[in-house]
């Protein structure tokens, strides 16, 4: 009997604070119990964790996983396809390692924004939230990781949603916040950057015993408002957050996860194989693949990183030659390592950008590929995605989707479905409008599901 709007304003503000504050990551005990009982009833979700390798700008689909060797020379570009381990899937000759692993992932060729919207400011917001979020004037829909932080939080001493470096090359971190509230924003840091204050913030700034001693003093001094503890949700919430924060600092888990000195050199070399000192376009950091793996092993539920900039209007093929081998090494090392550790079945691994590139590129020496948002690719592995599968198809030039078209909403719903979060979960925008996590109804990408 719960009507769409009837839950409006059932709590007053201080109750909201209680809900926002009483427990570790902003989920009240009640919500957690509810989530658990739901989980007990429904089939267990396939994915416990997710890694998003975001290829901002738009990687050239017809040079990668949707090659068209028979198209005219002003379309097909400089590279030849090679057969992959998956019969029927030919990939670029510069992706030999991923070709070997093609029996582990799904390539989706039929999800696109259809140029609506189709630019570097708005399309990433659509892809990364599954909703028509724009830079302003629309509701601030959450990223998948923020929803996970609210509805499926991970271990208390770890962030649920970690972003390495930044969310996107173009819009940076402007979609970090959402109407779910700041408690569910991602932790954005880059342990590979020496000067990153946020990364430093995640481990104590002093020796642990000294820190513990300080924390003990704080506890002794922080008693003035204690009479309110059991009473005031705000104060109880702050206490709980402080406890979690200090547990996090004392726990070696996160600190060790981001410490790459724990890896042997061979492993690092595998991830950094073909990594150049200089690139034509920003390349991103291949060690983010490794860092992501370590965070997943530690138990962080959602890890996102932006791998360079794939907006190659000029010198597309120069960039391909530089950037594909690096990408090939990083992603294949990640998939192999996850598989070896038995984590791939429960971890979604995505590699995608906000659009494809224009199949027609001309034949000039320094040809580039312009924007193209009527076709692109999504690489999805693990966590309930099929092993070795192609979904959808494009026409013979790679310009238009001809088969199994899905909207971005379908993609978002599929991710939530696999993560065990109901995409129809009702949430409220800042103007108190009840909407669903994915506002629009859309079918799951069922062909991609194992």
């Amino acid at each position: 009997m719960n009507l769409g709007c009837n839950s409006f304003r059932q709590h007053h503000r201080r109750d909201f604070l209680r809900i926002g504050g009483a427990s570790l990551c902003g989920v009240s005990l009640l919500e957690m119990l509810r989530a658990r009982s739901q989980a007990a009833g429904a089939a267990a979700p396939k994915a416990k964790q997710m890694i998003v390798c975001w290829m901002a700008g738009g990687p050239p689909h017809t040079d990668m996983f949707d090659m068209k060797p028979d198209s005219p020379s002003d379309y097909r570009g400089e590279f030849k396809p090679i057969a992959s381990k998956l019969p029927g899937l030919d990939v670029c000759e510069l992706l030999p390692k991923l070709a070997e692993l093609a029996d582990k992932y799904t390539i989706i060729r039929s999800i696109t924004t259809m140029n609506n919207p189709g630019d570097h400011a708005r399309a990433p917001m659509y892809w990364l939230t599954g909703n028509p979020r724009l830079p302003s004037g629309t509701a601030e829909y959450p990223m998948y990781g923020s929803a996970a932080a609210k509805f499926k939080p991970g271990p208390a001493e770890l962030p649920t949603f970690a972003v390495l470096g930044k969310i996107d090359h173009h819009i940076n971190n402007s979609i970090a916040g959402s109407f779910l509230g700041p408690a569910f924003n991602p932790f954005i840091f880059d342990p590979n950057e020496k000067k990153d204050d946020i990364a430093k913030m995640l481990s104590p700034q002093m020796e642990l015993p000294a820190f513990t001693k300080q924390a003990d003093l704080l506890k002794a001094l922080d008693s003035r408002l204690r009479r309110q503890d059991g009473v005031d949700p705000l104060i109880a919430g702050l206490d709980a957050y402080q406890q979690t924060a200090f547990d996090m600092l004392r726990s070696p888990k996160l600190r060790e996860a981001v410490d790459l000195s724990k890896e042997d050199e061979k492993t690092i070399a595998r991830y950094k194989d073909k990594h150049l000192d200089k690139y034509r376009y920003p390349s991103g950091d291949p060690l983010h693949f490794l860092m992501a793996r370590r965070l997943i092993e530690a138990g962080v539920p959602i890890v996102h990183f932006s791998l360079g900039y794939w907006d190659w209007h000029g010198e597309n093929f120069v960039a391909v030659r530089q950037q594909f081998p690096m990408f090939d090494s990083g992603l294949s090392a990640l998939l192999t390592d996850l598989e070896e550790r038995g984590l791939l079945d429960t971890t979604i691994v995505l590699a995608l950008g906000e659009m494809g590139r224009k199949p027609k590129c001309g034949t000039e020496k320094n040809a580039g590929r312009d924007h193209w948002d009527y076709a692109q690719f999504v690489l999805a592995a693990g966590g309930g995605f099929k092993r070795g599968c192609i979904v959808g198809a494009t026409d013979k030039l790679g310009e238009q989707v001809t088969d199994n078209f899905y909207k971005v909403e379908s993609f978002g719903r599929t991710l939530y479905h696999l993560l065990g979060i109901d995409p129809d979960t009702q949430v409220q925008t800042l103007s108190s409008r009840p909407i669903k996590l994915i506002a629009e109804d859309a079918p799951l990408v069922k062909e991609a599901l194992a």
Partner: protein
Amino acid sequence: MRRLLSLYAVALLCAGGPRAWAEAPDSPLFSRHVVAVFSKLGCNAGTCHGAVQGKGGLRLSLFGAQPLADHAALVREHGGRRIDLLEVDRSLLLLKATAKVPHGGGKRTSAGSLEYDILRNWIAATAPADDIEKSRLTKLEVTPREQEAKSGASYPLKVQATFADGTSEDVTPLATFSSLDAGVASVDAAGQVAAQGVGDAAIIVRFRAEPVMSQVIVAREGSPSVAAPEPQNFIDEHILAKLRRLNIPPSELADDATFLRRARLDVTGQLPTPDEVRKFLADADPQKRTKKIDQLLSEPGYAALWTLKFCDLLNASDFGVYADGLAEHFEAPRFQAWIRARLAENTPYDELAARILTATSRDGRSLEDWAKEVVALQEGYTSPRTDLEIYARRQTLDAYWQRKEAVGVHGALQIAHSFLGLRLECAQCHRHPHDVWQQDDLLSFANFFMGVRTVGFQGENEKRYPEEHALFKQYEGEGKKLTEEAKQLKEGKGKELAEKAKTARDEANRLKNEIRRDEEKPETQAAAAEKRTQLASLEQTIAEHDAVQKEIREKEQRGRMLSDDVPKRILHAQILHRLRDDKSKRQASVTSPLGTQSSDKFRLLGESQPLEMAEGEDPRRKVIEWLRRPDNPLFARAIVNRVWAHYFGRGIVDPPDDLSPYNPATHPEMLDELCQRFIDNRYDLLWLHRTILTSRTYQQTSIASAESEMDRANYAFFYPRRLPAEVLLDALDQATLTREDLDMQYYHWPKGMRTVEVPYLPRNNFIVFMLEQFGRPPRNSSAQCDCARQVDSSLLQVLSFANHPRVREKIADPGGRVAQLIKENQDAPERIRELYLATLGRVPDDAELAACQQYVGEAASPEEGLRGVLWSLLNTKEFVLQH
């Protein structure tokens, strides 16, 4: 015995008259009953079939607003399978509702229920449409409208609907019920209210899309506690009366140190200094609190803090569209300076609103005079920024209308929010589901602002504004001329002198060395003197060169300004009211997935009659007249309620920007009286602040008692809340005796600016990170809501205060608090007392002092020890919270 009696009373209530409709009517009306069933079962909600695209192939109008369309959808679409007139029970409508066939919305009702029977009987009667007008709702009543109940007691609500055809029905079974505070009273689907905890709550009752409200008051059981305290002003009388009614004892007054910290933070956004605390504690004057309040309100911090609040509310940094010459770094600080000047001179609030809402760029002056101002403003964008003073002297705030989305329907939404405390976004597309507003209310209100010119490049501006265009040409010409002169100078004299100066510099350096050598020996003194003469002549050449370079730079800069920013602003950013030259084009209209709606009327919110607008009249003046009418239901209320919310963390109506009749005030009489007196005091904001601050309600302790701890809305104690982002960062600076470099010299920000004074995000990464974590609002149109400033807490907030490297650096700063104490204070306990005064604004008690002393004693050095103490104090709740 008492309990038994009360149970008996409840039983009597329950038995009060037969409930309507033990059974469904034999021939239910579609628009009256069937649509009501859809509303009751949630079928036509926005997340189900009421969605724009419908759901599962069926689309119903949102909240049943269009019964005819709904009827057609059910009877005609889907090959008529939704309704089976021959085999009624096989109708898809019934099978879906009872989930006998798979239904995305699950099971909504079961066979044999009243709702089911209404649907069934309607189909059995051949699913007719009916005359909608006859079933239009004219009155909806709920009884009892107000009820006192004891915790644990329960009573039914009755809902009576009167229709346009004069008939009246008990529609209780078709109504939905929800409680605004389920902790005080819950209500079930049948309308049975159950009193739970102490307090008062509104029950919102809805029939079809219409809401109506019933109040329940639950008093604390047990004997009244000790004698009530004396009220200090009329606020306290209202607050204490309500607490008496609820049988909740109010808390004691807070002690002097707590009061001082609280008032200083709330009024000026600053911590008290240790000296100020000491002095205040030692002061024996019984009037010292009132005197302190007056002092605080007269300090610059008051205007600074409320400038921040108003600039949040007015989205004061949303500038710059294509080629209008406007930019955040020019405009946002000017906007801020104007507001701050008005607050510093305590402009009456109605005048403030009028000077914002009726703003024009010319301010009644000639075009030429205004253009001179534009030039002066742009010239003043330098260090220090003299333009700020010029702008602050303007009569009206044209920058308000120069922001993005300031005009039209979106502008009307902002004005309704900022000045009337209403959130009307919902009414853009459909009837507001939680308020009284219809789409036409919003659009007719928006028409008052449709005539304001929208800034930005328009090709037609050249024709439309010929005088401005002439000026555009003139300034552009002057600018280009200067640029040309600069170029000439650079290539001519500049180049020539540059070569000379270069040789002169080398020569001068050589001479200087020689002179130094020559001066050492007596025999070369004469040579030195001669070389000094030569040197002087070389230096003159260099100076001449520098002067020319300066002249070139200035000409270039001024040339750029005159040929670019100035003419663009004159032609594309002048705020004026345009006449309604093309009537159809100037109508407020909204296109949403639900269709296009427009209005050509000028109708004020809540008024039934449209206004006639004379030719050439600026309709915004009519809005101001209406705002200033003493019976305006919203204008004074919105600001009074917001000021209250600033001091208490919640509005008398809460949230403070939801002044809806369906969101009742906790203390309606008090709100009325505050508004009335505020108006009687000529909208004097300082009066309002002073009145609230001097109440005992504001000065209560934040410590609740066992009898009052359940209170959340009746001010039995002072509710703690987190300090706002900017205030907290300034407090951190103050406590550590450091000052963040905002890194904005390039934009001519003055050195030493406090965080509350920041007009937009600076370049200092630490400040930006902290402001974002602690919920600074974005000040753009993405969210027009008081909630855009986030007030809740998060893990990252706590973590950043405890462990951000910059926080640690500030604690250990060589010129900071600890370093200063080590230098100036030799007494160990005295140092700790100072740290307490500097952070928490109070002296430590014996146990606290002992704990700190022990910690310092065990530390590697006194510095280390004191840093640990300071870190601990900064991370206490007492520091982070207002309490």
